[in-house]
């Protein structure tokens, strides 16, 4: 499996939180070769992969990554087809190109401050001063773009230097890619049954992970690995609050996670010489992990994260090596430490 190609395919598919159908279909098609796939009532993609060899009858292990991405939402139609909207990091919105998911897709540009009106004391960016410029007559916009239509950044997936990539939605298509790459690695090797869950709505309600993890619990799962992204080092940030890109799989250590599980993954990565770091959190992880471990009467849950820069912007940036290291660690866990 080509990591970059898979990540590109996933990043190109729209999946605004709450409207994930298109990226769900893409993820489902990527999963089909591993086992039967279904999409649950909330929209999450589930796949059940039979075990192989001596661990074929063990309890299934749940692998989870969220599928959705942060989105803007249309809240009003104004003169000359300008749209008011909410959502997004207000600091970076000006001048971004966007796709509007109305009755059909439309191109838009977020407005920017006219030069003669900039530099004053009103220097704080605000949604009040921003609109989406559609170039459509107002009547067309009103007929074709219902309020509530989702809007995504349309910045294309691109390589950055050697081995790095930048795109919107790397949070968390990087996690989805890591799980797909892990499934690729365990094919033909002994492993327990695997349940894959690509959840909807992590960026908003986390309802997707909650419901889907309950299904996994019902199917007998006793442990789960959640895969998400975390904060990568960049100028202006400290080493204490971030992890360097290229440092490998970030193994979550938190009172909210299963400590024994975290330590085992750390031991495994250490003994197999896989690039890894520890991500220490003092409480909640801000991911789907808490929702998953609370399913039914509980799943032992670990969290693996991929460090990225510029989270929740159109220029999210990741190092492919970290995705690969995460995939290898998941595969190693499933094959009981077998070198894969």
């Amino acid at each position, binding site marked *: 499996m080509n990591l970059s190609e898979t990540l590109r395919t996933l990043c190109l598919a729209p999946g605004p939180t709450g409207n994930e159908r298109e990226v769900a279909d893409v993820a489902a098609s990527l999963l089909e070769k591993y086992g039967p796939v279904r999409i649950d009532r909330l929209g999450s993609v589930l796949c059940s992969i039979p075990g192989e060899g001596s661990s074929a009858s063990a309890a299934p292990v749940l692998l989870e990554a969220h599928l959705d991405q942060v989105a803007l939402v249309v809240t009003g139609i104004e003169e000359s087809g300008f749209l008011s909207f909410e959502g997004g990091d207000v600091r970076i919105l000006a001048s971004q*190109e966007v796709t509007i998911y109305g009755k059909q897709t439309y191109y838009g540009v977020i407005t920017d401050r006219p030069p003669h009106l900039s530099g004053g004391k009103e220097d*704080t960016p605000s949604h009040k001063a921003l609109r989406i410029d559609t170039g459509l007559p107002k009547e067309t916009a009103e007929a074709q773009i219902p309020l509530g239509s989702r809007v995504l950044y349309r910045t294309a997936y691109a390589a950055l230097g050697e081995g790095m990539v930048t795109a919107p939605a790397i949070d968390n298509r990087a996690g989805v890619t890591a799980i797909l790459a892990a499934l690729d690695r365990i094919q033909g090797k002994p492993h327990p049954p695997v349940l894959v869950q690509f959840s909807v709505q992590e960026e908003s309600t986390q309802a997707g992970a909650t419901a889907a993890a309950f299904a996994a619990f019902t199917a007998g799962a006793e442990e789960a690995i959640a895969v998400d992204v975390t904060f990568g080092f960049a100028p202006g940030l400290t080493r204490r609050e971030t992890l360097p890109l290229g440092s490998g799989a970030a193994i979550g250590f938190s009172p909210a996670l299963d400590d024994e599980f975290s330590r085992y993954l750390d031991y495994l990565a250490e003994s197999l010489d896989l690039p890894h770091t520890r991500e220490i959190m003092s409480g909640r992880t801000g991911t789907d992990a808490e929702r998953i471990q609370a399913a039914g009467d509980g799943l032992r849950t670990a969290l693996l994260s991929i460090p990225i820069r*510029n989270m929740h912007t159109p220029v999210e940036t990741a190092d492919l090596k970290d995705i690969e290291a995460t995939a290898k660690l998941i595969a190693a866990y499933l094959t009981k430490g077998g070198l894969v």
Partner: protein
Amino acid sequence: MNLRYLEELCALPGVSGHEDAVRDWIELHLPADCSYRTDRLGNLIVTKAGAKAPCFTVLFAHMDEVGFIVTDTAEDGFLHFDTVGGIDKQSVIGKRLQFGERIGVVGIKPTHLCKGAEGESIPDIPSMYIDMAGETSIERGDVLTFPVGFTRFGEGYIRSKALDDRLGCLSLLELLCADDLPYALTCVFSAREEIGGAAAGAAYALRPDSAIVAETTTAADLPTVEGAERVCALGKGAVVPFMDKGTLYPKHLYDLAYKTAAANSIPIQTKTKIAGGNDARGVTASGCGVPTITVSVPCRYLHGPSVVAKESDCEAASALIRLLWERMSAGDEL
């Protein structure tokens, strides 16, 4: 207007002082009856053969665009930079930039890690950095542009970097390619307009009787801006101002522009705010003085990565530039 040509022109890198790629492209597309030279400041001066006009009227459009210059290379391959020309910091943060075939991104602290007002304020340019993933071939003094990309959208709109002033360049080139001009035509594709301008040197060398500057200008016709602050509007035609921050335009040329537009049903509008400035400033004051008028295409989000213009305004400006040049060359304004 040939939009395929416009797309090609806008894709070229041409940060002020580094206009070579634009100049080469224009030279390559000149018709055979044009002669040209590049002066010491980088202006490309083109003359198309023809009859001598009673009044020597030269056209100007600038080749350069706003951009970025690398001021320092930090460890881990992060680059510090400054802007070349006036660029709002809001137009830069969280965007991609272009360096040849490669891209960089201007990073930002994740909103999750911001404390207090930090999450709602934009860092100043000296605190920003370009992330090129450890690219080592880039040096202090190298320049970058906003990313290449040209889009037609909505009903008759276009969006790209560098429409300011490749639109003017293409208007002049298309006029140079016309085969029914009444007089010889001289055009200056000027350098460094965004940082003060080199056009005055070319104007001094040519000593024209009058001049027309083909430009773009800021339009703030947004729902968030009211009244005169809107300056001008897309879809309302060519913009001919009576005054801007650099030039007080001669009344006789201003009136001639409006008479010419009216007689030929070309939509025309003025600016409702004294804003902006262009090569007209330097050209007007060159030599013993050159009466100069500006014809602009109204553009939203000027000096940003996503400049927006309307095709109908581009056509109006091009048509007006030609007719105005013919009448000024004939000495009609006198």
